[in-house]
């Protein structure tokens, strides 16, 4: 993929750098005043290798994808007829070839996002707050919690496919040994499959959010806590009056990134449930990739990817507005 990040669930970029620039870009100093002479030719020479790659594999596809989405684009056919907005319209006409499956996959993506994001925020927040206490071995705990994140989704997927196997898996055997039901269909029936997908994702990526939130917590001045203590605030009071407000920018960033990562989920479903039972856990990315690259319906699949993009953009904007309004009130 043209983005240097994993295409699977948890594609993320280092938090503070992105957040800093998005916030401070307009305010960044114009390098060393006006006395410096412009070196446009030199600059583009330095930029050339990157810009060539960037134009071919990032800019061009972002635009040519729109063009493809206006066609019945099947590489196996002799020509690719232009159909205007038909691929988009079809998505909104009940009973068309694509609309049912597409919106089911969008709904599945929504279920996964709504089910996973709260856990991916609350658990890391609690863990980060614990790691921010004065404890021994904090760095070791942090390292352990983060470790699964460096494993690929394929590794995580096959490991948990085995552990959660309904007949032969360790998890059901452990449950049986504890006198609990030992026949839970973890990977083959809903809602269990969703529980598995969310659980595995939390296991895999919890450490990532923890590390960012921990950095945020360390950035909150001790003076604020001491002042709160002097005012007689207890632990809970301090958490809600000092920690949460101080963590707001970091929390807003983590929330947005986590929503987008969950909405781009692919590998977990592909490996754990194969999108099943039926298509009950097939996510939007899974459906788009399959439709475009396995079924060769590239025009329709491109149209779907832009609709998904649009939905994600709206969610991001709404989320951003909500965070801003809350910080103003």
């Amino acid at each position, binding site marked *: 993929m043209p983005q240097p990040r994993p295409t699977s669930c948890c594609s993320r970029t280092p938090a503070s750098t*992105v957040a800093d620039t998005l916030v401070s870009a307009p305010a960044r100093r114009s390098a060393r005043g006006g006395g410096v002479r412009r070196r446009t030719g030199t600059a583009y020479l330095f930029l050339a290798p990157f810009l060539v790659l960037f134009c071919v594999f990032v800019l061009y*596809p972002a635009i040519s994808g729109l063009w493809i989405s206006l066609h019945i684009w099947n590489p196996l056919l002799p020509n690719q007829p232009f159909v205007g907005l038909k691929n988009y319209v079809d998505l909104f006409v009940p009973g068309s070839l694509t609309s049912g499956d597409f919106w089911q996959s969008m709904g599945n993506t929504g279920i996964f996002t709504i089910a996973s994001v709260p856990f991916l925020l609350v658990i890391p927040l609690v863990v980060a707050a614990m790691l921010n206490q004065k404890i021994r071995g904090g760095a070791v705990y942090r390292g352990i919690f983060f470790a699964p994140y460096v494993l690929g*989704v394929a590794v995580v997927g096959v490991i948990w496919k085995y552990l959660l196997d309904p007949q032969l898996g360790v998890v059901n055997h452990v449950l049986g040994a504890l006198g609990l039901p030992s026949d839970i269909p973890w990977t083959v029936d809903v809602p269990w499959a969703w529980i598995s997908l969310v659980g595995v994702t939390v296991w895999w990526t919890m450490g990532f959010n923890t590390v960012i939130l921990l950095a945020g917590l*360390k950035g909150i*001045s*001790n003076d604020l806590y001491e002042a709160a203590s002097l005012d007689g605030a207890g632990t809970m009071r301090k958490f809600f009056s000092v920690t949460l407000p101080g963590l707001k920018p970091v929390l807003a960033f983590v929330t947005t990134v986590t929503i987008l990562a969950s909405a781009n989920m692919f590998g977990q479903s592909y490996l754990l449930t194969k999108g099943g039972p039926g298509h009950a856990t097939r996510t939007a990315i899974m459906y788009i*990739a399959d439709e475009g690259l396995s079924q060769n319906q590239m025009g329709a699949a491109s149209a779907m990817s832009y609709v*998904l993009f649009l939905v994600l953009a709206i969610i991001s904007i709404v989320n951003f507005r909500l965070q801003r309004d809350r910080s103003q009130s």
Partner: protein
Amino acid sequence: MTATIPRATTTASVPQQAQPRRKARRTPVATIVLYVVLTLLALAIVVPLVWIVLTSFKTDFDAINTPLNPIPHPFTLNAYQTLASGQQPIFLWFLNSLAAGVLQTVLILITASAGAYALARLEFAGKKIVFGVIVATLLVPPVIFLIPNYLTVQSLGWLDSIWAITIPGSAGAFGIFFLRQFFVGLPPEIEEAARMDGAGDFRIFWQIVLPLSRPALATLAVLSFLNNWNDFLWPVYVLLSPEHQTLQPGLAVLQGAYSTHFGIVMAGALIASVPVLILFTIAQRQIVDSVASSGVKG
């Protein structure tokens, strides 16, 4: 005079105790609860991984019939021998993953560092636009590029080759964005002194900026390698023949071929994990160093 410390904060780095922690006034019970909860969580991460390692040394019969006993009985290397026999060429996949990871990392380091130098240290026409467009693409979901890039790679004749899984991936905005942040933080004085001595841009870039940026370059190298090593969706669709797979799509192949031979699949998962876990262990230290050593005295 002490210059500001360049920001090189990354996913895996946390400022090391930037300020003295506030004094703990915990009850003993709270302390015990804290350690118990953290340790239980750590076990929830570690136990499945240890279980996988042990299962890879089990016979199929053992893995299926005594799943609750983690200790292999008998201890066997059958899984690894089966993998080595080459029916599924996992060691070839390993080499493919390694080659692709290294190639893409080198490409990113070269193109991103040169580009970031221009964006951070030079004034030129169109700078704001170029930088704005690059940053904007960070926010575009990768799925947008999937089909057009597949067609591009196909028309270049790169399907099923190492080029498909390295070149498009090195075009992303993250590397140049990351290095620019670091380069901007380098003190201008060093560069100005070099310029007075008559050094040109290339010499300043090569002999001053790059050596000063080793920690950031190392961090970017590690992140780029991890990303390429772990990439899954894209290689699943652009790598076609068995001998050209990388480890991640290869694991999905293994799972299909040996669905109930858990030892073999777990051995494969282990082989795919060991390099990144080693890298993670090393890089943790590197990243801490990069924060510690990035204070530049001007």
